[in-house]
């Protein structure tokens, strides 16, 4: 890591800068401080909701009032974010107020769709609403939280509509699109990066909860028939992984029909195929690869954590016996180690010291 003036001078000499070096603004906030502030915001929002529920009970009892007050409160939070973007107290206040407002909007939306709660429509409305907030609200934590909520609401909407297989694939594609285009959309970095994190977290949860929701459904509904094409969800995730790898190879200047490119894609295809029966492997690998390609260690850590979570969570999946799952994991492990051998010896051959270093 170099100092800001040194870095600027390096970039300027490469002809990559425009104008003078901008003033060094607010220091970058580490991710764990943002997580701490986000959790505190949720706690505060819970008590604000309690305040509204007791002090203004009529708001919670009427879907119109709930929706109207929720929207007004979110608009007020937006104004506070805009008016004092660098004030810690006002930003925290606006965050908590907006979270509480979103809960009120959700009450209102569910009130309007009370007769159709089993369908996917209310969740679809909430997904669209949260997606708009993720773009509009000028605060990193808010954007990440809204993108996360949008991803989850979209997954619930798909689940409730019987299209279980769509959510994981679509969110995986959105995650890949966000991180692959982070540099290209550099001017919109303040919007794209938090949305990328929020979508990644929702994707990890969607892939993880697929184990438990499907298993619970099988436990409580003996005649449970998995939605159409239950394998299609993982196929879409595997496709997102393959496309991501292809884009990264293209970016590195590897021609599509060169033997090493094809071998690399075949290795990725084999890993993707293995994760048809062990959900999450392709998704976890995709997050780790995208993180590494962007020089983003937090994202690499999320991908590795996701892989560990999926392998341990796989134990509880009721779709298959432990014997079958053991065979699937054995095949997956063999494929991963074979892919490693292929990378080290055929696709990217190098000296032995490079690997051991």
């Amino acid at each position, binding site marked *: 890591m170099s100092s800001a003036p040194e*870095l600027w001078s390096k970039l300027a000499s490469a002809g990559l800068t425009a104008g003078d070096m901008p003033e060094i603004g607010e220091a970058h906030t580490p991710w764990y401080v943002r*997580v701490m502030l986000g959790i505190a915001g949720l706690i505060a929002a819970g008590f604000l909701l309690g305040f509204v529920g007791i002090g203004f009970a009529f708001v919670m009892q009427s879907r119109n009032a709930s929706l109207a007050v929720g929207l007004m409160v979110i608009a007020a939070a937006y104004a506070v974010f805009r008016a004092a973007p660098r004030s*810690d107290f006002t930003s*925290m206040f606006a965050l908590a107020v907006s979270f509480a407002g979103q809960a009120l909007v959700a009450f209102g939306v569910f009130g309007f769709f009370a007769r159709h709660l089993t369908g996917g429509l209310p969740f679809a409305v909430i997904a669209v609403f949260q997606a708009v907030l993720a773009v509009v609200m000028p605060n990193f934590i808010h954007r990440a939280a809204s993108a996360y909520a949008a991803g989850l609401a979209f997954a619930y909407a798909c689940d409730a509509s019987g299209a279980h297989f769509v959510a994981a694939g679509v969110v995986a594609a959105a995650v890949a699109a966000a991180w692959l285009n982070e540099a290209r959309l*550099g001017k919109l970095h303040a919007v794209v990066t938090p949305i990328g994190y929020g979508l990644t977290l929702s994707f990890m949860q969607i892939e993880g909860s697929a184990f438990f929701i499907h298993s619970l459904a099988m436990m409580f509904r003996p005649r449970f028939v998995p939605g159409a094409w239950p394998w299609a969800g993982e196929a879409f995730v595997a496709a997102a992984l393959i496309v991501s790898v292809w884009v990264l190879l293209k970016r590195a200047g590897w021609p599509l029909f060169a033997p090493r490119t094809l071998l690399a894609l075949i290795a990725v295809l084999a890993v993707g195929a293995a994760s048809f029966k062990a959900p999450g492997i392709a998704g976890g690998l995709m997050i780790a690869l995208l993180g590494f390609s962007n020089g983003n260690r937090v994202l690499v850590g999320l991908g590795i954590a996701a892989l*560990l979570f999926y392998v341990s969570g796989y134990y509880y999946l009721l779709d298959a016996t432990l014997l079958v799952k053991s065979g699937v994991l*054995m095949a997956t492990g063999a494929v991963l180690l074979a892919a490693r051998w292929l990378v080290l010896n055929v696709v990217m051959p190098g000296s032995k010291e490079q690997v051991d270093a």
Partner: protein
Amino acid sequence: MSDRHSILAWSGQGAITDVQAALDVAGVLPAARDWRVFLDRLLLWSGAVALAAAVVFFIAHNWNDLGRFAKFGLVGLLLIVAVIGYWRLGVDRAAGKASLLVASILLGALLALFGQTYQTGADTWELFANWAVLMAPWVIVGRFAGLWMLWVAVANAAIVLYFQVFPGFFGIVFSTERQLWTLFAFNTAVLLGWELAGRRVSWLDERWAPRLLAIASGATVTLLMIQTIFDWRETSATALIAYPVWVACAYGAYRVLMRDLFVLAGGCLSAIVVVTAFLARHLLNGRAEAGGFLFIAMVVIAMAAASGWWLKQVAREERA
């Protein structure tokens, strides 16, 4: 601020003409050699963990079509192959470390198979305790953080399971408290040992492991404090002393002696949760009034904002 964050921040202000090229010039993006090393590690560790998990799942299935000698032979053979792999590859190579990790997991599978086959009558906590004891020599010679953390996880599982079997003389309520105290004492002792040894031993100088231990230590003492706040008649109230001491020690260790913003942020969150629990217990218990909710919300917001501000100051000092 890292180079990556600086470039992205400048690009947001329109000062960078080609962000991808700028990240490349600054050395933020990985070169072909970095990719090779990363893929080697990623595929090696994920493959090794998948294979070890496959054996554990296989033993857990308790397949009757395969005789006990065949099962013992299979797990024993794989264990020997993993140990030979470690011996041949050596402790300094990633593949050697992965072999030792697989061997350690297979040791647990072998113990589980023994208990499953001979119905020894041993409790589950004994399986994990024996596993931790038998694995310890490998952990010591292995010299890598991941294996130590596996050992810590196995030991934590043994403690949790022990208190499920022996709830103690005072019954279930004190059992939870004793379990939390034991977990707190164990994880804090390991954390302390790690931080002291990490200054002298290079392979222990990885921040992710002590941070996980700090989460385990901090979460248990915070739970003990919350338990004391809500059920002070039912608890020993030792947390009233232990919690402030823990906060003071964490501040001293991670603000004065060394800087670790991660642990400080966790400490701030713990303090916010404890103060919120205290206020909720005394302001809302039996008389839920709107003013009480609003007051607590404002206190949480103020504490979080102050924590955020303070942590940014500490981060700024780090960079200066």
